[in-house]
């Protein structure tokens, strides 16, 4: 690619420096604490340290990453590296943390560049801004959710998604070993990517370890390559050994795992992620209210702690059966299974893998235990690659991304951030819808009337929740109402997108021709 388009797509990132000066969320303290832990304490203490409530709950590679960062941090402000300095936040600390995110985003930019190389896209027009590569790079670099979560709210998702996109790009480029390596590394940075591990596993097994297919596309058992399986296994094993080895030697594995998978937290976050359980909870609440009104339920049997009181704890549903972690795991597995079967029985190369990956991420989001609404990004970013290539995928992508991004609004709740989140959301939504519409203008329209209505309904919902509600009397009686409405409304959209994507994956005809892998 010549410099021009890269420059154009890269340009927006420089604006991020300016959002440095907004208020800081608890995530700053979380990462400051981890810098302190990894810098001041020996490895054996990392997963035992509990002075602060924000204990280390990411896998070891992330801890090493924080360790390396802490060595740069000490030139900015030595005080932040003291474990006892709870809630310490000088301006230099904030500056360092912000700049570290921006710096690590370089990996994300590189990964986007690699992904754009994999997109061939049809030649719609001579203009640069109408090329699929350009649209994809803007959709990824300017992604509203990533901007908000990383640069305003503060996390390190940029370079982690960069790793994921890089591994996807490598699989597209048929460099499977590198793809597997990057994904293994990614897993040991943040274990949430386990959500999409089945897709990787099945794809690599089916399309890489079995080197050829029969003419009708089904599996050819005798083309199984032991060499490839062993090399893949070796890569994964070596990476895991590097990561978990020290803790295995210290006999700390159970402790590490208990920190990584804290099931004591409740089914839903304080603010319900817009997934199936949000709808389930809402239904339960509605039924209980109706039950109380119609005297089917005894008020004394209703547990005191309301699900929406904002406390993260175990609780029971009133009318519908309660949900345990095991239930959610089973539901997730059942949800993932059809897409995995599709990947196995009708392999369609890297694009089929990508769709399966998106479905895995989305299904895990829909049915997972204690899902955070930020996890929707796991589905949105890979889906961006699909959206610039097929009109059907584009329309699903737009619904998913608009509702997913809107569901992130409650993360920013202070007044100075309100114009920013609205402006950025409008920018991204208008751009994505108009550019994809232009790209696919020769095919049928992207939205039917129902979908258009639903998306337009987000506007009044926002006005009601942010501008009208605070001035009504309900603010005192039902303070959780805007969150509930947002969560349920978005859950409807996300469920619809998930369903539509599944249908399109299952109905898609298998690729007829064989491809030597």
């Amino acid at each position, binding site marked *: 690619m010549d410099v*021009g388009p890269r*420059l*154009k797509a890269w*340009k927006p990132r*420089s*604006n991020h*420096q*300016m*959002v*440095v*000066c*907004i208020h800081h969320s608890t995530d700053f303290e979380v990462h400051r604490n981890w810098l302190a832990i990894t810098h001041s304490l020996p490895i054996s203490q990392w997963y035992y340290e509990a002075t602060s409530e924000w204990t280390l709950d990411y896998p070891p590679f992330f801890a090493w990453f924080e360790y390396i960062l802490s060595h740069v941090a000490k030139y900015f402000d030595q005080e932040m590296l003291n474990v006892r300095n709870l809630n310490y936040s000088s301006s230099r600390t904030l500056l360092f943390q912000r700049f570290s995110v921006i710096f690590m985003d370089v990996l994300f930019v590189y990964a986007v560049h690699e992904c754009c190389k994999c997109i061939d896209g049809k030649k719609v027009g001579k*203009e640069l801004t109408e090329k699929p590569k350009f649209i994809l790079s803007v959709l990824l670099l300017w992604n509203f959710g990533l901007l908000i979560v990383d640069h305003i709210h503060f996390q390190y998702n940029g370079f982690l998604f960069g790793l994921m996109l890089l591994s996807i790009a490598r699989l597209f480029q048929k460099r499977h070993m590198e793809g597997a390596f990057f994904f293994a590394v990614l897993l040991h940075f943040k274990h949430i990517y386990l959500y999409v591990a089945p897709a990787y596993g099945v794809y690599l097994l089916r399309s890489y370890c079995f080197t050829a297919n029969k003419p009708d596309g089904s599996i050819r058992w005798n083309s199984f390559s032991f060499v490839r399986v062993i090399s893949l296994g070796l890569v994964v094993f070596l990476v895991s050994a590097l990561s978990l080895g020290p803790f295995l030697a210290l006999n700390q594995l159970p402790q590490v795992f208990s920190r990584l998978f804290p099931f004591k937290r409740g089914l839903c976050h304080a603010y319900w992620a817009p997934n199936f359980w949000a709808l389930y909870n809402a239904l339960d609440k509605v039924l209980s209210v109706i039950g109380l009104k119609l005297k089917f339920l005894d008020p004394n049997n209703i547990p005191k702690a309301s699900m929406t009181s904002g406390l993260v704890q175990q609780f029971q549903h009133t009318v519908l059966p309660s949900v345990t972690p095991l239930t959610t795991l089973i539901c997730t597995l059942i949800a993932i299974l059809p897409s995995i079967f599709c990947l196995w029985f009708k392999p369609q190369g890297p694009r089929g893998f990508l769709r399966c990956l998106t479905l895995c991420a989305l299904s895990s989001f829909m049915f997972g235990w204690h899902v955070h609404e930020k996890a929707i990004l796991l589905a949105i970013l890979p889906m961006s690659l699909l959206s610039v290539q097929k009109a059907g995928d584009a329309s699903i992508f737009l619904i998913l991304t608009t509702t997913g991004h809107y569901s992130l609004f409650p993360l920013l709740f202070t*007044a*100075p951030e309100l*114009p*920013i989140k609205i*402006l*950025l959301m*409008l*920018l991204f939504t*208008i*751009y994505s819808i*108009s550019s994809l519409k232009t790209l696919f203008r020769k095919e049928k329209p992207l939205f039917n009337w129902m979908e258009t209505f639903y998306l337009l309904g987000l506007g009044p919902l926002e006005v009601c929740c942010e501008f009208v509600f605070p001035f009504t009397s309900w603010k005192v009686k039902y303070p959780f109402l805007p969150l509930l409405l947002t969560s349920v409304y978005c859950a409807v959209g996300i469920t619809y997108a998930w369903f539509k994507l599944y249908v399109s994956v299952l109905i898609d005809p298998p690729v007829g021709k064989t491809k030597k892998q």
Partner: protein
Amino acid sequence: MEKWYLMTIVVLIGLTVRWTVSLNSYSGAGKPPMFGDYEAQRHWQEITFNLPVKQWYFNSSDNNLQYWGLDYPPLTAYHSLLCAYVAKFINPDWIALHTSRGYESQAHKLFMRTTVLIADLLIYIPAVVLYCCCLKDISTKKKIANALCILLYPGLILIDYGHFQYNSVSLGFALWGVLGVSCDWDLLGSLAFCLAINYKQMELYHSLPFFCFLLGKCFKKGLKGKGFVLLVKLACTVVASFVLCWLPFFTEREQTLQVLRRLFPVDRGLFEDKVANIWCSFNVFLKIRDILPRHIQLIMSFCFTFLSLLPACIKLTLQPSSKGFRLTLVSCALSFFLFSFQVHEKSILLVSLPVCLVLSEIPFMSTWFLLVSTFSLLPLLLKDELLMPSVVTTMAFFIACVTSFSIFEKTSEEELQLKSFSISVRKYLPCFTFLSRMIQYLFLISVITMVLLTLMTVTLDPPQKLPDLFSVLVCFVSCLNFLFFLVYFNIIIMWDSKSGRNQKKIS
């Protein structure tokens, strides 16, 4: 227009950049007893709300003119009054008489910033969008790119949303004036421009080109017939708008005189603080401010200003054209900035606006000028702790201009509109072929100097004996650049022959 959604995106980008800058510090934050321009605007809301109109411009026990007395025309006062009503509705403590001095809080800052945003959104931004849509002979994409570059101009964003002022209102009205007059809606245009003058008296820098252009139009239409009618209508519009704005102050002669005294403080001297104009730069070598008596200073600046802008204005009167009008706006405002009395560094925005308007025609020189104008504000921005926003916005603006207009490919003589000039010079000096290369070298030197000075000002401490060394250097370098631009723009205006207008525009 098609691609309306791209224009919407451009406006949204402009708004996002503006609001992000506004999250930074403002002028005089946390600096008692005088604070800064932010406190001045809050104080004017306090004064206009609590005191009757007759006392707004007078010194009294309730209105101490030494503490940020009103020194803008009545329209600013009315705007402050409007904001004060909204402030009263939200929190009366913000404008309580006497007790609200130095009031600072997050909520109040949010309120003040919102007033700037709303004013901008209502007046300046629509003017820019409409102006870009009305540009002739260029593609839709170029129009949108033009709008993006104008909306990303750092100087206005940093002063309005950082330092805190309402320049977008007066510049917006002036832009509506330019639009109206260029599209032959002369009455509406002159009404808009009168509103601009009545908002900030510095808009008088633009008044001569407006006058000459409209006069030229009247001459063209024939002074015996339509032209005379137009002249009379214009005069009536101007008088009517002034009377309407100044109505409460025309009741007594003393009122009018006092307002005029506040607007034009002739006792304050040739210049105040550091500003990138001739007198301040000259003062470095020869302390004219102290040597010459006050009235000599006045006469000197008057003569220099008018001598430097006369050729362009005369040409505009004799050959009124839209392009000539905009170029004359630039050169006139620049002459005033360089040679006039009591100029503030923020007045460079009055030159930047017309330069933004010729961005699509002379992209290279305009971008260069706009970068220098932002650089000249550096001392002020550093005082307000706006270094990071200024660096980021300048880079964003530069990248936007480079990619939209490919400015580095448009440095030939023809692109710089210097062709007729160099042909004339080559009649006497056949070897004068290096003009384009010379300009490119000058650009390089200028940019390197600006970057170096910025780095030095930020990282080094000035020597003990010369504490103002860096600000003076910044002003001096900017002044040299501005002089070069003054010469350049005057050359283009004077050598803009009829053959130039017949050439096809290259887009």
